[in-house]
């Protein structure tokens, strides 16, 4: 993909004046003093009375936005307000699949931009986010699936996103534990080698540390409870720690976006539903890539710790509860055991849920709003982790200039009025 804006890795670590660099040498050095001299990863400042930009929501997207504002645009008088602990929303709950092999041009542009940034993110942030481009494989189980991956592969080709068709034999070599002749025989697949996984917590922490070192105030346990809007212009936010003035405000609150919009007197075309995931007990490596199957609504990868990480589709009802119904999991486990018979004797160790913000067309809203200088970057739903660097990068550019970055522009809220939807759902029921 063409990569407007940033050349990844163009800026480097020496500029980190405030924080000492992480490396094997710093580990060695610190081990001599029994690790009692490490610095804080980020400060814990009290909110200042006013900021140039306030980002609401200390998830990956919010933190990335703050980081790029400071790093790329020199805007450092920035606060990230997080009502709880940073990274504790969907960022810290997701199954960490990263890929960009989307069908539609607008999506491909956004997610591929993110992949470009993922590839150097650890170095850029000086924090090992463990981005692991081990490959993401989509399986096709019937003629219709083959048509779908056919279109996907071709679309990727045209958009210059890497895609390879894979035969069942090749699949068996890559994923020896798969049962090709299961109830829905595997007819083929499409592989994106640049896709993979990353360590979710590290992404939040890495961005937070880097943003903090550039002067951004990251304020946890600070909940936004209202907006100060005068004559259609945002003036600041009300929080449980008082009113804070702001020149511009970016709302990056995922599952709670509807609540925030409501505070600003708007309604978003978003429904918040539970999305669940679960892991097995840790095992020695048995699956080296990410394998997804839309037909059976299930996907799997194996974490570096050895747990198999599974997910499925979101619960069909709206809720903010961050827990879902068990039958959603049953619908995932059955097919998984069918596709990977050896899973039968493995065990579920932990299940959890997050609240995902799903728009009408399941694509995000990265947009201005009717209130001047109030911007939204929400609606990433079931699949926004992979976009984190790209989303933060283009949103920061948009906040800085006041005009939406070209990659962000199609994701304007206007499309819900005009009908220019970016609807990947028709092609992929599981949108991770």
């Amino acid at each position, binding site marked *: 993909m063409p990569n407007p804006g940033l050349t990844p890795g163009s800026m480097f670590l020496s500029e980190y004046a405030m924080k000492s660099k992480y490396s094997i040498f710093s580990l060695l050095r610190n081990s001599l003093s029994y*690790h009692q001299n490490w610095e804080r990863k980020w400060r814990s400042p009290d909110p200042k009375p006013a900021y140039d930009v306030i980002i609401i929501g200390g998830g990956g997207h919010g933190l990335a936005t703050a980081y790029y504002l400071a790093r790329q645009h020199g805007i450092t008088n920035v606060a990230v307000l997080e009502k709880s602990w940073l990274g504790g929303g969907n960022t810290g709950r997701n199954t960490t699949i990263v890929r960009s092999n989307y069908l539609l041009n607008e999506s491909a542009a956004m997610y591929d931009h993110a992949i470009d940034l993922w590839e150097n993110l650890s170095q850029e942030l000086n924090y090992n986010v463990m981005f692991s481009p081990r490959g993401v494989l989509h399986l096709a189980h019937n003629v219709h699936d083959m048509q779908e991956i056919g279109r996907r592969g071709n679309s990727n080709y045209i958009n210059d996103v890497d895609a390879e068709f894979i035969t069942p034999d090749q699949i068996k070599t890559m994923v020896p534990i798969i049962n090709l002749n299961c109830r829905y025989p595997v007819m083929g697949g499409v592989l994106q080698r640049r896709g993979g996984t990353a360590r979710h917590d590290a992404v939040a922490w890495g961005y937070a540390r880097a943003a903090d070192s550039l002067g951004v105030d990251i304020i946890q346990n600070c909940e936004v409870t209202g907006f100060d809007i005068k004559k259609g212009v945002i003036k600041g936010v009300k929080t449980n720690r008082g009113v804070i003035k702001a020149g511009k405000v970016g709302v990056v609150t995922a599952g709670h976006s509807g609540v925030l919009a409501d505070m600003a007197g708007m309604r978003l075309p978003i429904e918040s539903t539970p999305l669940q995931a679960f892991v097995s007990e840790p095992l020695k490596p048995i699956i080296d890539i990410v394998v997804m199957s839309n037909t059976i609504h299930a996907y799997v990868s194996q974490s570096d710790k050895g747990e198999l990480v599974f997910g499925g589709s979101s619960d069909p009802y709206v809720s903010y509860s961050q827990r879902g119904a068990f039958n959603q999991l049953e619908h995932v486990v059955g097919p998984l055991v069918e596709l990977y018979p050896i899973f039968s004797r493995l*065990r579920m160790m932990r299940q959890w849920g997050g609240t995902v913000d799903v728009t009408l067309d399941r694509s995000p809203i990265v947009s201005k709003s009717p209130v001047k200088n109030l911007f939204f970057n929400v609606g990433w739903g079931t699949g926004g982790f992979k976009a984190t660097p790209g989303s933060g990068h283009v949103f920061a550019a948009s906040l800085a200039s006041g005009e939406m970055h070209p990659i962000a522009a199609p994701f304007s809220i206007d499309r819900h009025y005009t009908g220019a939807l970016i609807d990947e759902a028709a092609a992929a029921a599981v949108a991770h």
Partner: protein
Amino acid sequence: MSQSRRLVKGGRIDRDKPLSFVFNGKTYQGYEGDTLASALIANDVRVVARSFKYHRPRGVFSAGSDEPNAIVQLEEGAATQPDTLATCIELYDNLSATSQNCWPSVEFDINEINSVFMRLMPAGFYYKTFMWPAKLWMWYEGIIRKAAGMGLAPKHPDPDRYEAIHTHCDVLVVGGGPAGLAAALAAGRTGARVILADAQCEPGGDLLAETDELEIAGEAASNWVSKTLAELRDMPEVRILERTTITGYYDYNWLTALQKVTDHMGPDKGGNLPRQRFIKIRARQVVLATGAIERPLVFAENDRPGVMMASAVRTYINRYGVLPGRSMVVFTNNDTAYQTAIDAVRLGAQVTVVDARPAPQGDVVTRAEALGIQIMDRSVITNLHGRMGVKCVTVQHLGEDGTTLLGKPIPFSCDLVAMSGGWNPTVHLFSQSGGKLRWDDDKTMFVPLAGPAINPSRSVGCCNGTMDLPGCLAEGLAAGSKAAKDAGFGTGRAPKAIKATARPEAPLRPLWEVSCHGHKSRFHDFQNDSKVSDLELASLEGMVSVEHTKRYTATGMGTDQGKTSNVNALAIMARIQGREIPAVGTTTFRPPYTPVSFGAITGQDRRELFEQVRTTAMQPWHVANGAVFEDVGDWKRPRYFPQGSEDMHAAVLRECKATRDSVGIVDASTLGKIDIQGPDAAKFLEMIYTNAWAKLGVGRCRYGVMLSEHGMIFDDGVTTRLSDNHYHMTTTTGGAARVMGWLEEWLQTEWPEMEVYCTSVTEQWSVASISGPKARDLLAGLTDIDLDPEAFPFMAVREGSFAGVPARIFRISFTGEVAYEINVPTCYGLHMWETLMEHGKAHDICVYGTETLHVLRAEKGFIIVGQDTDGTCTPMDVGMDWIVSKKKADFIGKRSFTRSDTAREGRKQLVGLFTDDPSFVLPEGAHIVDTATPKPPLRALGHVTSSYMSPNVTGPDGVNGDKGRSIAMALLQDGRNRMGDTLYVALMDGRVKTVTVTDPVFFDKEGERTHG
């Protein structure tokens, strides 16, 4: 010596039933009633496993599901079970287990080198390194992945069977200790339907580890347990589920349980029984009596083999008849561990008690002293020696501040440390149910916060912080009665109190971490190798939120989910941060309480029972006649019927041609069929479909498309008016369930006032669709229905008899030929089919499958929803402007047509494509561009949606014929204005194909054949 640590008598093991088992290749003996852990201890096997990160030698630590150390690989081959707790494996004959995560052996593990570099590997070290050079991360990761993980997954499919069932009860009692037994008794006596679930092989809970000194209702506790169980077993409405762990507590009092049915028998020994049963329970009321878990003490080198929980040591002595150590140091801050000391001394062990409390007093202390047990008060263990097993501990006095160490360190040789740091109520299920916790400073524990619960449950006994036996029994009785009453049984008054031995306890001295000299490892989380210094590092780096600390240090992230580590970690964090423990917060308890095998969750729904294959009544004929099948939704549909050595291409060309030349027949039974009745049925259809339905005459059919709210096509099909208020709707095969759900959703949520009833009748009708010039001739001899085109026109239905059975015949066509869809009740489906095939011979009948179906409809430009449309297509986009009523006030999707982008010109539109090379079939999904030399990335104009070889279509170049010529349908930007244009299709292999844009109707544009 065999079973050198086995006591000569005692325990609930059956000494008449010796069992032999193999651990790490060596054969040992044990008894029925043992766990693998107790048998290993009996045989003096100390090192059982290696830890996750540092590969430190580890031994058995506890006696239950809280075990963080003794995790083994059970059995080999297909029946292997990784990550299994030795403490929860019931011993069976010939059991075989191995240590995992070690090489070459558990005694000598190469990776123990990690232990040497421990200092380089503090919490989160991996976030700080492995970044240089950037390219090497994938290599580093490979090594990390290999080193991490624990057990080995099986290599072969699971040979076992599982069951998943649903059940209901009035009162579910979770846990069969004294509180749970009392609750079950009280509830059961009211006549309520009660389920008592207990994880162990026999109920009794902590009482199983007691000596006969402990009395309940005037007799030995064990007798009371037996009598109570006998009474419960006699109650017809009470069910006792042994070996059953309640694993999850979900909303609306819905709980999941895992019952281990034959695990204790060993592989292949279960006969017809399933290995495990997953039970989903809906309970009116729940009584949680899940007990408490003892807290470890966090002191230097506390992870060495031979350091065990005091209550576990007692369990091994009394329940399993093994003495885990002959010279033992009991390290405690409370009274309960004294019972362990007393029981051990009586069996000949040498015991010293190291008690953190100054001058402990009370009954149990007096009894211990009377037995000659040395008690060192105000003392703590500050160091421990013995890498492969405790050899010696160092004891020192503890200052009043709880941290300062006073006086001279005194060494004690010993082979066992039994420790107790107090108790944590097992609040996991309560917490899963949405309950909040409260820190009880007196008891020094988190207890359930009383108050209105999201889900109606009561916590009783130890899990409620009630640690004394009489209290447990009383709470159990009261809660059992109240729960029964709330479920509609009894008066709610508790039965007469049950007397029991009271063991008053002196308060404990909180001791969350024990000071030591130098930088020794003090583990709070054993399974994940997390130490006090890791918590300190986390705080130092600003990871102060409990969730951050947990994630940064991996505390509580192991298979035990922090059963022994969470509270200690919280308390240590509180100290580091200078806060109160409750101010630090708690992490969320998530299901399952103990791991659940995926096989059990799947239950019987596997292999042939997993999403059962749907076939039509004609399946036997299809199979007998060599059909090649494809999966469409859950259905297997014949894709084509090869003759001789034909490949698909040849078969499809033949089938396509024959259908247009004589008559073709396809099994159309899989199409979704919905019976719609009610006075508002017509009104309803007006809203569901875009075109007009109110005036459709009885006996007439109409094609309709359904839209989403966005105005995008979502399904299509023909619907027929059978009588005034009765319609027969057909849907796509794959969309049937979705459409049914859609109709119901609108009826139930938006238009509840409409009187309309929808019933899926897909399976009730078998459908044969015959089409072609000879279709009418074929049908003529087989039905009493008048087939004259005047009497039975296109788009009409007639009822009558077909080959002697009742039938509905629809004259509709998906091929553009004269066509009839003959519907008969499914039981006659095969009869209908065979009759048609038999009589069809005279008319050169040709059977075809879905592939030919697709080609024939493509020749006519008919869309397949989901293939030629994709959720971004309006009817106008696919050239069906005529189907959208301009007159109707409303229908689903109508409003969206006014949106500017939906209404705009130049959207992607359905077109036909002819390749310049008539023999080249474009790959479906290939993208269309306007340059002959495409260089990605570039904007595509559209893509190919359907593409086939057709024997019936003549191209602009005049090419057709037996080999066919290629046709394609495509969605193309501004397609309708590009008719006749030359464009290019960019293939992924770099080739470029030239195409001409054309009308998507390739054959019989005027539609004369349909009406013929």
